C-alpha cells in the first residue's frame, strides 16, 4: 500500500482532478473515489486532502459550492472547471509519457544497453 508521502509531487492534485472528473462530490467523496479506484493500493492521509483542494481552487482548476449530501447534511461540493478539465487531460498525457519513459528504462536488459 502506498502512503501519501510516497507519491511523486503533484500526483495528489492529478488524482483529485481525476476523481472529480467523474462528477461533483465533497472532500470525503473524493477520498472514497481515489481509494476505491486505486483498488485499495493507495491510502491517503486524509487531512492532506484539504490543502490540496484549496490549492486547486486557488488556481481556478476546481470550484466549490455548498450543497446537501446523500445523508441530508450540509457539505461542500467540488467540481472541475473548464480549466481543470484541460489540465487533467494534459497531466494524464504527461503521466503516461513519464510512465512509459521510466518503464522503458527500468525494463532495459543488459544486452540492449
Amino acid at each position, binding site marked *: 500500500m502506498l502512503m501519501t508521502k510516497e507519491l511523486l509531487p503533484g500526483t495528489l492534485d492529478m488524482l483529485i482532478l481525476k476523481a472529480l472528473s467523474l462528477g461533483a462530490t465533497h472532500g470525503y467523496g473524493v477520498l472514497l473515489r481515489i481509494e476505491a479506484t486505486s483498488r485499495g493500493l493507495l491510502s491517503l492521509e486524509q487531512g*492532506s486532502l484539504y490543502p490540496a483542494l484549496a490549492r486547486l481552487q486557488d488556481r481556478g482548476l476546481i470550484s466549490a459550492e455548498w450543497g446537501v449530501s446523500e445523508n441530508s*447534511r450540509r457539505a461542500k461540493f467540488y467540481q472541475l472547471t473548464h480549466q481543470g478539465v484541460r489540465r487533467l487531460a494534459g497531466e494524464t498525457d504527461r503521466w503516461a509519457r513519464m510512465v512509459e519513459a521510466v518503464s522503458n528504462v527500468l525494463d532495459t536488459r543488459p544486452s540492449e544497453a
Partner: protein
Amino acid sequence: MFHRLRARLRLLRHREDFNRELDEEMSFHIDRLAEDLMRRGMDPDAARREARIRFGSTERAQARTREERGLALFDEVGRNLRFALRGTVRSPLFSATSILTLALCIGLAASVFSVVHAVLWQPLPYPHPDHLARAVLYQPAYGRDPGSTNLTGRTWQRIRDQGPFEHAVYSDGAGGVNLTTSQAAAYVRQQRVGAGFFHVLGVPPELGREFDASEDVPGGPAVAILSHGLWTRTFGGDPDIIGRTIRLKGEAYTVVGVMPADFRSDTKADVWTPLRATTTGEGGGANYTVLVRFPPGMTFQEADARMSSIQPPQSSNENAPTLRFGLVPLDAALTAGLRLPLLFLLGAIALMLVVGCANLAGLNIARSLARQSEIATRQALGGGTGALVRQMVTETLVLGFLGGVAGLGVAYAALTGLSTLIRTQFDIWQAVGMDRTALAMVFGLTLVATLLFGLAPAVRVMSPRGLRVLVSGARGAVGGRGHLLRKSLLVGEVAIVTALLYATGLLVHGYERLEGLDPGFDARNVLTVRFSLDDARYAQAEEVRQLFDETLAGIRRIPGVTSAGAALTLPYERGLNEGFRLPEEDSTAYHNTNVVYVTPGFFKTLRIPVLRGRAFDDADEAGRQLVGVVNQAFVTSNLKNRQVLGSMLDVGSSDMRMVGVVGNVQQAAGWGRAGMPVWETPTVYVPAAQVTGRDFRLVHMWFSPSWVVRTSASRPDLAGQVLRVFHRVDPDLPVARVASLQQVVNDAFSKQRFVAGFLIVVALFALLLAGIGLYGIVAHEVVQRRAEMGLRMALGSSPGRAVWTVGSTGVRLTLLGLLLGGAASMAAARIMGFLIYGVTPYDPPTLAALLGVLALLAAVASFLPAARVGRLHPADILREV
C-alpha cells in the same frame, strides 16, 4: 492571475467565514468516516476516535489550507505591521527624526512646487491661451523683454492698420477710481480696455455685452463693465443692472455688461471702461498694451514672423536703432517679474529635498548597520530571506506612512501660508491648489531613498558571508561600505548646505544693503493718505488746487501736526516718466526723467534738504513764471558744469525756470537701471499750483496723489482726524490708502524680504538636517570605538584626547563638505550676481558668517555625542572587553 488576486482579496474580507466553513467541512468528513466505520461494526465511541486518528491533525490541515489560499501571507503582513509599530515606539529618536525629516521634505517641497507650478506653468484661464500674445516693438540687437510690452499710440495704430491678427489695445494696469453709490463712496480699481478686448481673450460677459467700436473713441459715451465681484458686492447682484447708470469718477456711466465670476483680466480690476486710444496725451507715451490672438493651427514662431512684417515707425534721427515688431507669449509677459524669485525658491527647496533624502538614507544605513547582527542571528536561526526583507520593508513603510501623513499636514499648512503670503507680495491671479502629482512624486522620492539605502546593507548581510557578522562579535556592527556610503552622503549634504547658506547670505546681505541705503528723507512720524483724483469733480486745475488748499489747511490745524503737504508720488514708489530737453537742444531730443508735482510744504514735511536756491512757496502760482526744483541726481546726470539756478528747462513741452536743487531720495523707477529696486532717480519737482487741468487729468488717470503729514511725536489717532478733514471738505472722496511713510518704505522691499526670509527658513532647515546627520555619524562612531577609547584611556591617554579623536571625524567630514560646497557656492554666486541687483559674488562678511555657522554646526554635532567618550570609565570598558 487576476482571478486569483480577486479570489484572495474576497477571502481576506471573509476570512472568519472561511475558517468556520473549513471547520464544518472537516467535521463533516470525520463524521462520515465514523459513520462508515460504525457501519462496518465498530462501536460509536471507537469509530469516532478512529476517524479522528485517520484524519490526522485538523489544526495542521487547516493551517496548511489557509496557507494554500494565500491567507498566510496576510497573517504575516499583520504580524510585521504590529512588529514595525512596536519598533517605531521602541526607538523614538530614530522614528521622530525620520518622521520629521519626511514631513518637512514632503510638506515643504510639495507646497512650494504647487505654488510655482500654479503660478508659472498653469495655463492662463482663457480659451486656447497659447495663442494669446502681447505685441512688442523691440531692438533686435537686444532681444525682447517679456516684462515691458508697452507701446505708444502711433505704434498701436500700425498694428491696427497693418497687423495680421485679431487684437485689442488696452492699459495693462488698473488705476484707483471713486465709485459713489447712494450708501457710500468706494475706492475701486478701474482698467481701461479697447473694444474687442474680452472677445480677444475669449471670455464673453455674463450679462450684457462688451464695448463696441463706437464707444471706444474719444468723446464716446460713458459706459462701464462690472466685475462679478463688484456687481454682487456693491449692487447686490441686481439682474436689471444692464442699462442702469452708476456714478464712477464723479460722472454717470451706463453699465453695459457684467463679467463672469471666475474671470479676471491680466490685472486685478473691479470695473472696466473704454480706453479710447489716441496718439496724443496718454497715447503720446508708451502707455498702451496690445493683446493679440493668432489663429488656431499657427505656431508662435509663424505668428511672430507674420507680426514682424509690419513696417516699424520711421525715426527722423538717422542714428536711431532699427526696430522690429514681434510677439511675447501672454503667460511669459504676465509672469515676467515672478519667474526669477519663484525659481530661486524652487531651487532652494530642491536642494533641501536632496539634503533630506540623503539624511533619510544615512539614518537608514545606520539603522540597518546596527541591526546586522540581529539579522544575521535571525538568518542563522532559519528566518527566510524573503520574510526578513518583507519585515524590513514593512518597517520602512510604516515610518514612511507616518511621515507621509505628517507631511501631508505640513504641505497643506505650508501651502495655505505660502499662497497667502505670495498673494500679498506678487500680483498673481492663479488659483493655487495642492499639486497631487508633486505630492506623490516627493513622497515617492523620499520613500525610495529610505528603502534603497535601508535595505542595501541588510541584503548584503544575507549573503552567505553575512554570518561573519556573528563571528566578528555580537556587540559591534561592522562598518565597511555602508558606513563609507553614509559618510559620503554627509559630505554631500554639508556641501549643499554650504552652497545654500552662501546663496542665502548673499541675498540677505544684498537686501540689507538696499534697506541700509540713505533714504534722503526722514520717515519718522509721517502719515500718508492717498485719494484718487481721477474724477469729473477734479477735472479742472482750480478744483484740484482748492482740494489741496482746503484739506492741507484743515490738517495743519490738527494739534501736534507740524507740517503737511501733497505730492503725486512718494519716495520708494514709482514716479511719472516725462521727457525733457535742455534749452539749446532741438525739439526732437527728449530724455527721460521723473516728474513729481508737490505742494510747497512737501520738502519740509519729508525733511528733504534744499541744497541750493529755494523750495516752492505760495507765490509759485498758475499764471506766474513756471518754476522747477531738480534733485542732485538730475544735476549730476544732466546738468554737469552748467549754471543750474535761473536756467530754463523744457519739461513735457513747458519751459520752466530752475529755482532750487534738493537732495536725492530713493525711488523706484519704471525705466533705467534694470533690476534695481530703488535708486537715486534723477527727478524734476514742479509746483502743484502750476499744473494744468489737462495734465492733472492725465496723471491722475495713472497715479493717485498722496498727502503727507508730519507730527512732533507719534500720534496713533492722527489718521482718523486727517480723514475727518477730508470728509468735511469732500464727503464723496473715498480713501485709497492710509499708511505711515515707514510702511511705504517697507513695502518697497517686501518682495526681497519675502524671498530672503524664505531662503533663510529653507537654509536653516537644511542646516538642521545636516546637523542631525552629522550627529548620527559621530554617535555611531562613539558606540563603535568605545572599547578602543577605553583601552587608550586605560593606557594613559587623556579623556580630552579621546573625545577629540572621535569627534574629529565629524569635523573632518564637515571640512570636506565645506571645500566642495565652497566651490559650488562661488559658481552659484557668480550666476546670482548677474541676476540680482546688490549681489556681489565674493562677499567677505557673508563668507565669514558662513564659516562661523558651519564651524558651530560641526562642533555641536560632533562633540555633543563625542563627549560621552570622555565620561567612560576605563575600568568598566576593560571588564566588558
